[in-house]
């Protein structure tokens, strides 16, 4: 067992993590980047070092722009440790991780959590059937393996969905339909934020181009308010209803679902950091100050892990957090002016967010299931009616609920049911979402074997 110490440990090799590492490297601060995937890039730049623009240009220009950034991870003072899963961060600045079946502890003076985002659960009827995957999953298949599903149906809304559908079209893969769940009234509600959004014309143009291509090449159905995925053992069709009462049924074997991304809070919550409920993005975010510092004095959070601002913002956030840490080692090494400019850049890049957040806000219809039989907790097979039955026992919150119906007790540790359960409780108890709270998450942040856990034993100094 090696016990290694670094000045800074960065968890996550996505844009925020690599940007932070490269910045620290420029200022000669040795650091380690720990990532659980086989290669660097996170989700947005997945597999970029192996992807060829010529052969995979359907992925789009923006994707390939990430090459230079991601390649920096091999620079000088950055130690890059891939295929390593962090499963706990302790109060004593210890990071417990496992690589190839063996656990170890790495310590650091400062820790940057840059673990990114995950997709918001979308508990629609039939979502557990083989053939249903997330849109993020579809994109990963494109990037990692150049594999796509013919004649799929895309269901949901949000930039990731439109980008992926556009990539499918660029690759010549036929999409039967896009069932867009953006509520018609959201367009008007988003107008107040449109002005600021115009500060990012390039992003707006991208989005517009994607939607134009999609509408030209597939059956684009707007304002979908009800969806049911039908099948027995696998998907056979999707039934839908729009806000206008128009209904339809589409035959397909593949459905890709998506209604936005949310910070992946399992590590930050299990580490005991403070979190707050974001009322406009409808999700939990770790609390950070202007420098990216969490409620813990030596843990910083950068990128989508702190709040969804996108990959371009993540690059800047990585630099800001790195520079703030540099200044903790050597006060004023990075000037106040430098930091101020970075923060302005950050604000500028984020100017489109309020508009996107309001326009693509996930609607109530898709945040909790309509039907009683719909599965809420995939891992434990707990349906909406099981949760409602447990609520009759006067449950104080999600943690007591776990005890009564097992929702949240499976391997994914609440990632795909936490928000759904929270909202079902809040509605039943007539409470605000922030008052209801969330599952109390504990290590290990991802399951590890008993042997992997035991492999740490006896390696502490007394």
């Amino acid at each position: 067992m090696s016990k290694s110490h670094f000045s800074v440990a960065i968890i996550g090799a996505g844009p925020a993590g690599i940007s932070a590492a490269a910045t620290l490297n420029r200022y000669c601060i040795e650091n380690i980047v720990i990532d659980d995937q086989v290669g660097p890039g996170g989700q947005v730049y997945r597999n970029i070092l192996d992807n060829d623009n010529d052969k995979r240009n359907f992925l789009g220009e923006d994707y390939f722009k990430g090459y230079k950034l991601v390649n920096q991870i091999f620079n000088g003072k950055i130690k890059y440790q891939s295929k390593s899963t962090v499963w706990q961060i302790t109060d004593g600045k210890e990071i417990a991780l496992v690589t190839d079946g063996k656990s170890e502890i790495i310590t650091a003076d400062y820790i940057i959590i840059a673990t990114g985002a995950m997709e918001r659960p979308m508990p629609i009827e039939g979502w557990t059937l083989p053939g249903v995957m997330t849109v993020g999953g579809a994109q990963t298949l494109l990037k990692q393996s150049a594999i796509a599903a013919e004649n799929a149906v895309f269901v949901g809304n949000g930039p990731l969905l439109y980008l992926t559908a556009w990539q499918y079209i660029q690759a010549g893969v036929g999409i039967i339909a896009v069932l867009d769940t953006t509520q018609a009234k959201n367009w008007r509600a988003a107008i107040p934020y449109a002005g600021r959004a115009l500060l990012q014309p390039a992003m707006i143009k991208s989005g517009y181009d994607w939607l134009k291509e999609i509408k030209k090449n597939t059956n684009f159905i707007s304002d979908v308010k009800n969806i049911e995925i039908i099948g027995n053992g696998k998907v056979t069709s999707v039934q839908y209803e729009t806000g206008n009462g128009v209904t339809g049924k589409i035959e397909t074997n593949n459905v890709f679902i998506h209604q936005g991304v949310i910070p992946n809070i399992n590590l930050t919550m299990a580490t005991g950091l403070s979190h707050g409920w974001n009322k406009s993005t409808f999700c939990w975010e770790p609390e950070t100050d202007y420098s990216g510092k969490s409620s813990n004095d030596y843990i910083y959070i950068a990128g989508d892990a702190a709040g969804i601002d996108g990959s371009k913002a993540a690059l800047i956030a990585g630099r800001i957090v790195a520079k703030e840490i540099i200044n903790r080692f050597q006060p004023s090494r990075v000037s106040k002016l430098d930091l101020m400019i970075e923060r302005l850049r950050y604000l500028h890049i984020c100017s489109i967010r309020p508009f996107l957040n309001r326009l693509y806000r996930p609607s109530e219809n898709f945040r909790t299931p309509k039907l009683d039989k719909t599965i809420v907790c995939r891992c434990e097979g707990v349906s909406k009616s099981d949760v409602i039955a447990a609520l009759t026992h006067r449950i104080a919150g999600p943690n007591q609920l776990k005890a009564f119906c097992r929702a949240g007790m499976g391997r994914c540790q609440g990632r795909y049911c936490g928000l759904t359960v929270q909202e079902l409780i809040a509605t039943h108890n007539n409470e605000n979402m922030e008052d209801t709270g969330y599952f109390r998450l504990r290590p290990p942040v991802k399951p590890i074997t008993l042997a992997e856990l035991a492999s740490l034993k006896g390696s502490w100094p007394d």
Partner: protein
Amino acid sequence: MTKENQSNWDAIITGGGLIGLSIGYGLSIRGFSVLILDEGDLDIRAARGNFGLVWVQGKGAYFPSYADWTMRSATLWPQFADSLSSFGGPSIGLNQSGGLAVCLSDEEMQQRNDKLKNLRSNQNGRFEFQMLDRRELEDLMPGIGPKVVGAAYCPHDGHVNPLYLMRALAKGLIENGGLILTKNPLTDVKKIGDNIIVITPKRRFECQRLVLAAGLANAKLAPKIGLKQSIQPQKGQIIITEKLDQKFALPTLLMRQTEEGGIMIGDSHEDTGFETGVCPKITSGIADRAIATFPKIAESNVIRSWAALRVMSRDGYPIYNQSKLMEGAFAISCHSGVTLAAAHAIDLAGYIAETKLGAELEAFSEERFDVQKT
């Protein structure tokens, strides 16, 4: 008037954990209207650490009253489980087919043997146990590891699903006219005439019986009824694996398989105050011992680890006290909520109903901690 608005109750219990629910349930089946006042979802709840063992071996080896009380509860468990099953809901999974304390060294075997021999003698032979060597143990539990020397087997031991137990108690209590109000901690209490007045931040209640079963919070609540409870938190950490495809015949002191098939593994005893952090140093030790006991589970995934605070009295035994200041008021502290649930629901609830604790509980009075009585 709905139950929610009702302010007059026969009995009010502070604490919706296992102690409070067991006593509350026991009172409710005796015809008392019972209100349980509980705190919130994230507050310190010892019940989170419930392992599920209905355990007799070793308890009270050097404190005969505790051995008696434990044995009593174990014999009451089957009828207690039956009464709970009449309210429907998932079975609480009571299994009293015996249990093992696995020993990984000759020294452990010796210590265990001595302890249990002592227990047997102070129980006049009612308590049975058998020290098993490796070979005998392997017959009972195939797959034990090479480091295992043997085990102490006790036929009185068993286990139950603690989560379903709590659910069944709550259900039974509610179906008998009781109510559980969460986020309603007791802030003050006084006696006016025959009534005990209980005050929470938002409400005011009246009752004839008050039971303080608020776990560690009892330390600050007990003085309100003129009592003292010398209790401190003691941290215990537990890990749980995903479902295994191997069935284990018996629970051990440190490992118990749930109905779903996952294994709960403990434990630790740490004096770290009120913090409930999980420590990899401890959990890796717990995992290591589990693998030494059953090597085949080494590849099973740990999906959760957590810590809870035991309500630990100075000598580790329960505290049962009746208030002299306020008739009908009691303070109860105990860290073996599962094993004693039956005795609490049947015997203790009966004593509380009659406002007189049984003679066998005198040994558990807080006064045993007073070196000099004034």
